[in-house]
């Protein structure tokens, strides 16, 4: 039952997200170099961290699916990757807006951080077409799990390699953080908790929705009602 405790989780998410944004605008000091545009940091960075962790979580669920053969793990993996893709769109858009404000360009192709995130995003954008391409549900789940594991292992590897890259224009906030004041750290951590809670809330919300749909399908079959196949490639 994924809907259990969803109300409390939703309220906690709202409190932390709203709190983080309020603290970011009214409590955190203004950056001397960037001015107001540094406020994007409280949205963009937590979103990127949570999206990447979500991709890795998708890989972990996929491992559990292959180990146990339990299709519920495949569904969990699918939803985690789906949520991370949505956050990934947010990361790319907010990052581009920040880049335009800071560098005068929407995108820089010679910046490893940007291009590597785009590669990860495009890699996972292939996940759903892969599912759509396979009709047999068992094979679909197995192949999707293999994809999620390989791609999930690629995410931290890719991140580590990019951090080691010499050329950099994109700020390494958590690496070059010696001069960051405590207020900025506080707001950043509140935003990170808020974004993590948002991911978990939406993940459970979507799991509950898919679970309900699956229960209806079972009921329809039991009653002998014609089941109309959905357009989604999501596991049922």
């Amino acid at each position: 039952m994924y809907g259990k405790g969803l109300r409390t989780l939703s309220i906690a998410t709202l409190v932390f997200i709203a709190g983080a944004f309020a603290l970011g605008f009214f409590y955190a000091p203004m950056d001397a170099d960037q001015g107001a545009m540094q406020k994007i940091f409280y949205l963009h960075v937590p979103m990127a961290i949570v999206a990447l962790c979500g991709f890795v979580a998708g890989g972990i669920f996929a491992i559990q699916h292959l180990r146990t053969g339990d299709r519920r793990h495949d569904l969990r993996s699918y939803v985690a990757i789906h949520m991370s893709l949505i956050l990934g769109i947010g990361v790319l858009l907010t990052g581009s807006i920040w880049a335009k404000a800071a560098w005068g360009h929407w995108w820089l192709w010679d910046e490893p951080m940007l291009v590597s995130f785009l590669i990860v995003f495009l890699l996972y954008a292939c996940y759903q077409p892969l599912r759509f391409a396979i009709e047999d549900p068992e094979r679909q789940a197995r192949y999707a799990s293999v994809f999620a594991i390989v791609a999930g292992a690629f995410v931290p590897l890719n991140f580590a390699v990019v951090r080691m890259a010499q050329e950099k224009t994109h700020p390494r906030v958590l690496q070059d953080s010696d001069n960051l004041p405590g207020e900025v750290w506080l707001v950043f951590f509140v935003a990170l908790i808020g974004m993590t809670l948002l991911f978990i809330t939406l993940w459970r919300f979507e799991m509950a929705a898919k679970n309900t749909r699956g229960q209806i399908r079972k009921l329809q079959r039991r009653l002998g009602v014609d089941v109309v196949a959905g357009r989604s490639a999501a596991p049922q």
Partner: protein
Amino acid sequence: MILGADTLPDNGGYVAAAYLVFLVLLLVYFVIMAVRLSRVERELVALNEEEPPA
């Protein structure tokens, strides 16, 4: 490198745009989920009206 200066670059528009993107993304997600919920509701109503097998 934090201080309150009068000469900071005015990039409020970009900040508002970034936070709006986040809001719009969430709204689109909720609209899609609402459409799916209404489909589930329709299916449940249809199931309720279905005659049980003899």
